[in-house]
């Protein structure tokens, strides 16, 4: 088995359900040890992609590699997979459930129980260990499921919308744990439609929209490259100079206007036009774009709402 240095590698992957194309000609790589976000609005193809990586779905075209080879059971067992649709054995006791999930992946029962109890302690669920899962709240069930996902200390974590359904405090707890795994060398791929979360956590981001990849890059490099994309301005006087081919759209934040520029646009030309128009320019500032802005610039407005609230989700996708 050749080691490609990638935990996950997708090449030219296409998957359709009837007439609906869920994922189209998708190339995607997750380097070992990295923490990578799969971003996009609901129905953009995130879950379908993850399910193909986990061998639950098979691509119509293209290839999926896990640790440099076919995603067979042996390799999938090295993955901790938290699916989007949460499932538990409702009648089982919490500790038995996580122990069982360890057991089917080769963790001895005693060891699994020890680890499970340690995890429950860390998540503040110790007193629930011997309670049936159905007696827990949704959020607590989700934490139990997360414990089940990591009980076998996987090399790769694949988390499908891990933060949805958790309150802000527990989102922070989970974020902390994910960071912890990353610092210990675990490769992490998670999907989310929450841009803020991704912005805080990810080294790499992959943006999908309408079944297609629109961006796939290192977040820092991406932000640096996109730095010239957003200009914050404050001015007094005429605003006709804001009407130009360089500007894709303008957002009013209340105290400033944010000019979202088209790719490759020359911000100097706008400044030049402003000075000539006679407006008094108080501020003309190249700002670091939010991931949200970058995504909108590449995917087009109207796909993602502000502050990570998705709008215009594509129906029928998985």
């Amino acid at each position: 088995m050749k080691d490609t240095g990638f935990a996950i590698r997708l090449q030219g992957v296409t998957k359709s359900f009837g007439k609906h194309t869920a994922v189209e000609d998708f190339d995607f790589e997750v380097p070992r040890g990295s923490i990578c976000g799969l971003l996009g609005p609901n129905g953009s193809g995130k879950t379908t992609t993850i399910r193909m990586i986990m061998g639950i779905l098979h691509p119509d075209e293209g290839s999926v590699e896990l640790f440099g080879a076919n995603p067979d059971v042996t390799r999938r067992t090295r993955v901790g997979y938290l699916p989007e649709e949460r499932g538990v054995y409702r009648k089982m006791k919490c500790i038995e459930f996580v122990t069982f999930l360890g057991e089917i992946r080769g963790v001895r029962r005693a060891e699994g129980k020890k680890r499970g109890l340690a995890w429950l302690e860390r998540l503040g669920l110790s007193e629930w260990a011997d309670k049936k899962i159905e007696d827990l709240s949704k959020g607590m069930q989700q934490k139990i499921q997360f414990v089940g996902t990591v009980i076998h200390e996987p090399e790769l974590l694949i988390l499908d919308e891990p933060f949805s359904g958790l309150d802000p405090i527990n989102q922070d707890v989970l974020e902390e744990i994910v960071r912890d795994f990353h610092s210990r060398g675990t490769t992490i791929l998670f999907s989310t439609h929450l841009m803020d979360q991704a912005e805080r956590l990810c080294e790499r981001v992959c943006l999908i929209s309408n079944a297609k990849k629109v961006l796939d890059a290192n977040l820092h490099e991406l932000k640096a490259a996109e730095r010239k994309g957003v200009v914050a301005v404050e001015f007094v006087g005429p605003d006709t100079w804001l009407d130009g081919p360089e500007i894709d759209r303008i957002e009013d934040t209340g105290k400033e206007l944010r000019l979202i520029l088209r790719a490759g646009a020359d911000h100097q030309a706008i400044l030049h036009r402003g000075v000539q128009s006679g407006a008094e320019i108080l501020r003309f500032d190249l700002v670091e774009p939010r991931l949200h802005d970058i995504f909108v610039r590449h995917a087009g407005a109207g796909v993602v709402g502000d502050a990570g609230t998705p709008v215009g989700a594509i129906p029928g996708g998985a």
Partner: protein
Amino acid sequence: MLVNVWAVIRREYLQRVRSKWFVAATVGGPLFMSAMIVVPAYFASQGSRDAREVAVVDGTGVLYERLAPQLAEAGWDVREERWRVNVVTELREAADNNLLGGFLLLDELTLETGEGILYTKDRPSAIRQVTLRSTISRAALEYQLEQQGVDADAMLSGGELRIEMLSEEGADIEEPEFLVAYIGAFLLHMVIMLYAVAVMRATLEEKTNRIVEVIISSMKPWHLMLGKILGVGAVSMTQMGIWLLSGVLMFTMGLPMLISARPEMASMAEVIEFLPGFGLLALFGGYFVFGFFMYSALYAAVGAMCNSDEEAQQAQWPIMMLLIIPIVMVTNVIGNPSSTMAITLSLVPLFSPILMWGRVAGGGVPAWQIGLSFVLMLFAIFAIAWVAGRIYKVGILMAGKRATLPELLRWIREA
């Protein structure tokens, strides 16, 4: 790899055995069964307990000695009263003063017709009337037969038919036990269906709550299916083992205790005559295990190809039919165990557990046919597991609508 199959078996087993349902069915089953036998018998005997002594006025002088032991056994409290003038008036007076429950009058006519007269204030229950009537007529018959020099005991106990086989075939046939054949066939039908459907439900539940995605990511679908079947199978063995054990205890210890405590219920001991021997019990177990494997694999496949209970209800019909056909045929097959149709049908693997059992228990089946049925079932298990495993593999992860027949065939080919 077998470690995770073991984990699935263990989980399935413990979850089920610990459930309230299991405890209720396992303990409640034998309780219900023994209640079905004991309670009516108890009430039947209870009816006599407060009845007072009955005087028997034997005008024949030969009937009382024959009647008394049998009536006492059936719970009657009897004493003999000599025939004399005014005996009826005296006894009637005693009854009026509640010194006597009643009196039975037997005379020369009784010896010819079996007719007797019971004077009583309270009408006896139907069952007591029957015992009394048959005891009287039997005593009269015994007397008459003895007068003719006939062995009354042998004649009245139903005679005897010895069978001498003219051919080698069937020499090892067991004694016919029709009741065991019928009841056993229905029980097999019930328990195979009960536990095979449990496999379907377990599969469906895992599929609908999506836990299966996580489990399949760590083990082969085939292993999960195997674990489910073996887990439920182990539960069935435990449950039936407990039932069997409590049955054995009931007949070896419970029944003698009951009879010694209440001698009037002694007739219940006759039930033991109808019980199957060890050989038949083992055969029952064998047909259950093989039948369970065939049907549970089929039901697992049904569970895997459906997305809801409603869908599964419909999709399980073809398999349900396979279990119903032998039940429809069983009377015929037990009645004519050597007909070509009976032999053919009982060798069809999916029908064998019920039909071959019925034939064997009913008598008239050479050993080679029993052996052949197990060999054929073994082949069938492998064939069914192959097909069902393929359907399971594709279906378990499939969402959306239920698969159509052409789709199923494609799954089997491509999986």
